[in-house]
């Protein structure tokens, strides 16, 4: 694998290293309990878990937006804490390399127009003006949002807002992409496009960390899956194949769905996690 990270990080030094991380909101709502993960350059990691299991919290922590109560989160061996981000040089470098797409597009679109929202990142990260226009052209081509540029975010549908939010992060061209629920609220074709973007061969060296409930896409977009259980405890992590085939694990964590089928007049109900298992019935 090509090492695009300079000398310090190669496949053997984790990009992110979390050691016994605890986090609670307002000091009383536990959201993460003793999380240990290492994420290596180029890895595609999916966090799966029920609602409220702490996926978004963990992603916020990785992006340096909140800080652990206990334990440590480090990026290339540097502790991510308020002190580190006070340093403008580190902050800018980190923000250029790590892009975050929020679960709720409404929080990510705060500018008067779509265009201003999309260029907010590059403008604040000090990109050249020409470079910004070039990237703007490129991203509106990829996501097909040229007609939305002069609209206000409040005039957009949920799916359009999502696309614009995605554009506003992708335009930074980060080599680490954190994506909270990549396909939520998108129509099938747009979903497909986003998944294709995530697994694009030319961007293989990019690290992608996603959270999702959608087990159908996990196998495609990830090579490591972490299952988060109650109160943000990592129950298990491993390759998608082994996790997706463990029906008990998935059922325990609200991830398997119960399907009812109608065969002629008979209806029968059974649990399974994966669409493929349908055909084997």
């Amino acid at each position: 694998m090509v090492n695009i990270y300079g000398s310090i990080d190669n496949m053997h030094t984790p990009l992110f290293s979390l050691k016994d991380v605890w986090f609670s909101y307002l000091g009383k709502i536990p959201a993460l309990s003793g999380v240990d993960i290492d994420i290596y350059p180029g890895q595609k990691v999916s966090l799966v878990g029920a609602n409220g299991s702490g996926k978004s919290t963990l992603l916020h922590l990785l992006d340096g937006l909140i800080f652990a109560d206990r334990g440590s989160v480090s990026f290339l061996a540097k502790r991510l804490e308020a002190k580190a981000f006070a340093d403008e040089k580190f902050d800018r470098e980190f923000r250029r390399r790590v892009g975050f797409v929020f679960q709720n597009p409404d929080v990510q679109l705060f500018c008067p127009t779509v265009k201003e929202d999309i260029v907010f990142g590059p403008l604040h990260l000090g990109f050249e003006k020409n470079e910004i226009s070039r990237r703007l052209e490129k991203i509106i081509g990829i996501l097909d949002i040229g007609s939305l540029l002069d609209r206000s975010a409040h005039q957009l549908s949920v799916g359009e807002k999502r696309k614009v939010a995605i554009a506003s992060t992708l335009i930074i061209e980060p080599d680490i992409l954190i994506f909270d629920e990549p396909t939520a609220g998108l129509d099938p074709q747009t979903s497909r496009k986003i998944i294709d973007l995530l697994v694009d061969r030319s961007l293989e060296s990019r690290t992608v960390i996603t959270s999702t409930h959608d087990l159908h896409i996990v196998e495609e977009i990830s090579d490591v899956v972490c299952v988060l259980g109650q109160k943000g405890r990592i129950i298990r992590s491993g390759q998608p194949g082994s996790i997706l085939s463990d029906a008990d694990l998935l059922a325990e964590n609200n991830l398997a769905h119960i399907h009812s089928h109608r065969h002629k007049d008979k209806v029968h109900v059974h649990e399974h996690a994966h669409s493929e298992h349908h055909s084997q019935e």
Partner: protein
Amino acid sequence: MKDNGLLSFLKDSLFSEECALRGGLLQSLDPRIKVLGFALILVSALLARSIGFIFCLYLLSLCLALFSGIKLGFFLKRTWVFIPLFSLIIGLPALFSNFTPGEELLRINLGSFSPAISVSGVLTFSLFVLRVAATVSFAVLLSMTMRHFQLLKVLRIFGIPQVFVMVLGICYRYLYLLVEIVENTYLAVRSRVGAGLHYRAGQQVAGWNIAFLWMRSYRLSENVYMAMLSRGYRGQVHVLEDFKTGLKDWLWLIFTAALIICTLRFFH
């Protein structure tokens, strides 16, 4: 619940950019120069002493409205809602000789109190009403043909600190979201309990709603701030300047400048 009517009125009048999105004369001008021109016209209207000239200014506003794709009836309705509000209350006393002494035109007999209307009073009053009509028309015209974000950008250029302008923009953006949340909550409540909700229960819902809204907006602002940090915000605002000026803009500026020079020379 009546509140819904008020909400949709708020939504329509605050957030509708229908006129501003039409292609017309004023919509096609560069926002900066447009605002500057309007400022010059407003100053003319305030300084001019000639009824005829101010009347022409008023006609000008109607022409501009027509050329900007605004229906005259709609425009008159929009403006004449405000005009009496400002002019009649303040201007009415000027009609009477007690305030504007002069030749008596008409005496209203109300027993012991019999005020008289003077000729100069009528002139002063009509000048005043016309002036209000002209300024209100131009103000409404500007707000109708300008998208709010352009206004924000112009504010920025005229020296208002960027952070204020950004906060203003964010407020505007999220006000809509909150209005929508309230609206949806009402709909949700109504769909569960029916339209015949007792007013006491309605008040409870409203009270709960406000508390809920507070929490929502607090959490929202926290998350918006995180989204800004995540894309490189460090307390300093940078914006894209993409104004473009053309011949039409300079003609507009020359026209309005000529107007104010005329006012100062001949009608002041």
